[in-house]
């Protein structure tokens, strides 16, 4: 029996929108689609996936699966794929999903295509590559096909159906249980909201030091906007996590996004590409951010931004 299996990632009591979007895409392609929910105490979640189009949902419910770590999930998926004969396994991009997909690829000798923004019924995937400067049509030469879709590619579709819930066997390898979750700290959501801001000034490592975020703040204030940041500076403690834009941060779509000293990595881009107008200042003419800026300025932000703040203030007064 061939068919498509969608990895339904959950956090606490909800299945992630991204996974439900991939599920909707699979259902729309008309494939024979099942979902799989892996965790502890997740039977109810598995049932809920029926409302989003899954005819069958496998559930692997086991205490050892409670921490969201990849290797135990590879064990569950590999067995499920072999036992049920799935020929396609689809994932929505996430920190966890990428690790699960690559581990599964190695376990099953299955080809993995990542960062897809589309997939056709004849199994051709679309992958923007090299800072999105080219779109590659990719395929598979393996029996089992694995794909990870770029964040935010598909919307979930609530069809209101019910799923048949089936148990998936849980047999874990020794090495898969060696990594151990010591602590999961939830993201603090206080701080200014950037999702509603019409203007965002975002700072990256090019600011040089945490104190230089003052430049981003002053420019944001002059333009009447909010301040955002990249993961590199958030992880380095320069700015709070609540202001992070990108795959593991927020998704924003302001009228204006000003990027100061940001290279424009794909994981940052997915969080801000919906902005109406993008202005980037970066001293490296080859920075990927210039591939998707409406105005790209090659130069030293420390020379440009103070003057820019003055000029904007002068215009506004």
């Amino acid at each position, binding site marked *: 029996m061939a068919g498509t299996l969608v990895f339904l990632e959950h956090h606490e009591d909800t299945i992630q929108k991204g996974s439900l979007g991939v599920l909707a895409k699979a259902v729309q392609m008309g494939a024979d689609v099942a979902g799989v929910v892996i965790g502890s105490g997740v039977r109810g979640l598995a049932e809920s996936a029926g409302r989003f189009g899954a005819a069958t949902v496998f559930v692997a419910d086991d205490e050892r699966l409670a921490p969201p770590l990849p290797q135990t999930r590879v064990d569950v998926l590999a067995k499920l794929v072999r036992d049920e004969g799935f020929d396609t396994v689809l994932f929505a991009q996430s920190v966890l999903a990428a690790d699960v997909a690559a*581990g599964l690829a190695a376990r099953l000798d299955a080809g993995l295509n990542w960062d897809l923004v589309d997939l056709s019924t004849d199994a051709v995937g679309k992958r923007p590559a090299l800072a999105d400067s080219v779109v590659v*049509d990719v395929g598979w030469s393996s029996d089992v096909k694995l794909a990870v879709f770029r964040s935010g590619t598909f919307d979930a579709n609530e069809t209101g159906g019910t799923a048949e819930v089936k148990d998936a066997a849980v047999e874990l390898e020794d090495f898969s249980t060696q990594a151990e979750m*010591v602590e999961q700290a939830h993201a603090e959501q206080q701080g200014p909201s950037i999702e509603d801001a019409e203007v965002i000034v975002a700072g990256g490592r090019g600011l040089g030091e945490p104190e230089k975020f003052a430049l981003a703040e002053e420019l944001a204030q002059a333009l009447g906007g909010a301040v955002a940041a990249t993961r590199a500076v958030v992880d380095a403690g320069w700015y709070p996590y609540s202001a992070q834009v990108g795959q593991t941060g927020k998704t924003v779509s302001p009228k*204006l996004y000003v990027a100061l000293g940001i290279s424009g990595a794909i994981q940052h881009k997915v969080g801000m590409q919906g902005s109406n107008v993008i202005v980037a200042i970066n001293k490296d003419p080859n920075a990927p951010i210039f591939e998707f800026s409406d105005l*790209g300025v090659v130069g030293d932000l420390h020379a440009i931004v103070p003057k820019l703040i003055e000029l904007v203030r002068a215009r506004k007064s």
Partner: protein
Amino acid sequence: MKIAVCVKAVPDAAAGRRIDPSTKRIDRSVELAISDFDTYAVEEALRLKEAGGDGEVVVVSMGPEKAMDALRKALAMGADRAVLITDPGLEGADLLGTARALAVAIERESADLVLFGQQSADGGGACLWSAVAERLRRPVISQVSELTNDGASVIGKRQTEFGYDTIRAPLPAVIAVSDAINTPRYPSLKGIMGAKKKPQDTLSAADVGGAAAAGTTVIALNPPPARGEARKIEDDGNAAEQIVEFLTEKRLV
């Protein structure tokens, strides 16, 4: 502690990164440089070695022969040795082939710790470590922005979509570090001079168990979707004025 660091030689950004339409592979005929993201892994390995007082840092890579020139940067930073898996038979290897070859090379080194960067600057899969860990049957922690080591296990802190995880793994383990973990050192002049004399070994496809069949194919290349008129200017002293002009035109100020 013996640490293996997986680094990739990628087309230098200044030389341009493109896919060769005839081979449908990344054009590696241009100058290659060690992927920036991997210098953080090299730096972290050097710091672990320095903190421990002894040990060895081996950089392991798969790529064309001339990738060795790029690996020399890691040696100049302070790595002790370089191992390059290079063989025409391995050209065009995808995740499966690369993971298999690297895993065999790493196994031969019996490293206590295997470090990866956060993503390759050209392929950008940001997942190879997981395939390598699977083949090595070792625990893996990815996206690590803070790493501590007590000699028997490592603890990594990392950001996910939901906040911060702290994960412990016993050694030997596989760790992928994020670019927030440290600030990579610049090679010193002495380091650069000494790099050439450090051991630089190559392995062939046969040494790593032969070429693995690829699981993926590249079918066609298409231009990116058209986007609105984009402007790129170089600051000649009045970039601020030009930005304000642009914002005025767009009615944003």
